[in-house]
Every structure is written in C-alpha cells, then in structure tokens.
C-alpha cells in the first residue's frame, strides 16, 4: 500500500483512502482511523464534561446501575452501560472481568494469578482489580492463552 502525506494549507485536516475495493487491509486501516477518532463522553457530578479517548480509560465500573470511567487521576460518569462499552471498544482492548467491571487491557501494568482461578490486575495507576473465577477464562482467551 502506498502512503502519501501532503503538506498543504488546508482549513481542516483530511484523510482520503483510495482503493479499488475495500479489502482486509483497507478495512483494518479504516477501523484504526475510526477507533482513533472515537471518544467516550464523560462528566463529573458538577456537570463538567470531557471527551475521553478509550485508551485513557483504565477500567469502567457499574455502581448502583450507573457506570463510571476510571482514568489515571480522575473518575467520570458515563451514559454508556458496561455492555455497550464492552461491545463498542472490545477491539481496543476492553474486556469484561466481572459482572460490574470492564477493564482496558492496555491499562493493566501487571497480572497476578491467585488461587481459586482468580486473577488480580494492577492498573497503571496502581489500583488493583480482581478478575473473578468466572471471567478469568475469558481474559485468558483475549490474551491468546
């Protein structure tokens, strides 16, 4: 695939993909572009709004039917459910680890196997998340084990 970058005085950055048909390679490029542009809307108690890149989210937790996004230094409320987060951002590394939690696999610093088939994940910000016995095999599958 030929990659050309043109430096022009344009009002807005633009990406044009030229191809005969959408083959696997082009679809992959498209999905990368789309995922790179995807943002998750979050807000705080005082209605301060923010658009987060999925990569900024370490994990999401559902507490009393409200979903919260945990970043390195902040917590944001989101309108998305855990199921929506899991299905939309699965290709970006989001993985269900318990009934009330979805973890971004890229936000994990290290994993520790615990007895009883449970797994303890230490996130980039040092927080620890326990992956239940039920969801352990799913995580292993995602990691290609």
């Amino acid at each position, binding site marked *: 695939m030929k990659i050309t970058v043109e430096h022009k005085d344009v009002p807005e950055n633009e990406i044009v993909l030229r191809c005969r048909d959408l083959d696997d390679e082009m679809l992959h490029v498209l999905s990368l572009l789309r995922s790179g542009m995807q943002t998750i809307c979050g807000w705080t108690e005082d209605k301060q709004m923010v658009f987060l890149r999925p990569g900024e989210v370490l994990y999401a937790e559902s507490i009393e039917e409200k979903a919260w996004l945990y970043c390195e230094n902040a917590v944001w409320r989101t309108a998305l459910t855990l199921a929506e987060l899991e299905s939309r951002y699965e290709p970006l590394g989001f993985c269900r680890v318990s009934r009330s939690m979805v973890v971004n696999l890229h936000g*994990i610093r290290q994993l520790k196997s615990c*007895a009883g088939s449970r797994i303890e994940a230490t996130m980039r910000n040092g927080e620890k998340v326990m992956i239940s016995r039920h969801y352990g095999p799913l995580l292993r599958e995602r*990691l290609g*084990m």
Partner: protein
Amino acid sequence: MKQFLRFYCWGIEVKLYMSLYTTALVVFQAITEALQGRFAVNAWIMLEMLLVSFVFSAIQYAVLPAGNWSSKKGLAVWAVSANVLYIGGALVFGWFPGVPLWGDILLIALLECGLAAIWFGEQVACWRDTRALNRSLRKFQQEA
C-alpha cells in the same frame, strides 16, 4: 434455586477435597496394616476417616474461600485444623493400631509434609501462571 446452586457448588468442592484426604488416610492405614501382616482395612475406620475429612474440607472451604491461599489467617486455621482433626482422629478412633512411637512420629511428619506440599503446590502453580499471564499481556499490548 440460587441457594441450591450455591449449596451444590459447595458440595462439589468439599467432596473433592474430602475424597483426596480420605484416600491418603486409607492408603497410609493400609500400609501400616500391611507392615504388621494384616491385609484388610476396617470399614468403620474408613467411615471415620471420611467423616473427619469431610469436616476438615468444610473448614478449608470456609477459611480459604475459593481456594484463596494467600490469606495468612486462613492458612493458619487450616493447618491447625488439619493437625487437630487428623492427629485427634487417629488418637480418638485408633486409626493406626499397633504402630510404634517412631511410626506415629513418622505419620505426623508425613502429615506435616503433605500439608506443606499442598500449600507449596498452590504457590508454585500461581507463580508459573502469573509469569504466563504477564507474558501474554505484554504480547497483547505490543501487538495492538
């Protein structure tokens, strides 16, 4: 239904360990009997061993829930319970008749080694699994 399923899962886990511990006891009882020229194991003794193993497995399930061997308090209760129940059971029910004092000491040493082996096995298994998990995680993070 949920209660029943919880009870069923508890039963499966407890019975699994109960079978393991009972088998070990029966094997040692059979060896001590065979060494004394007797080639039969008393059915009552086997039932007593099964009952004591059931109690111990239930305690293990309670103090080390879901096999969480990292709890130091749980581990201490588990080790003390094993000694009290199995040494106590052997004394009260007379599981190893005719065994000399050195034989009793050897059996206790084997019990302690067995307990240590169970704990060590869990630690080694977790350590190996942790290594494999982190290797796969790094690979996943680099590939993306």
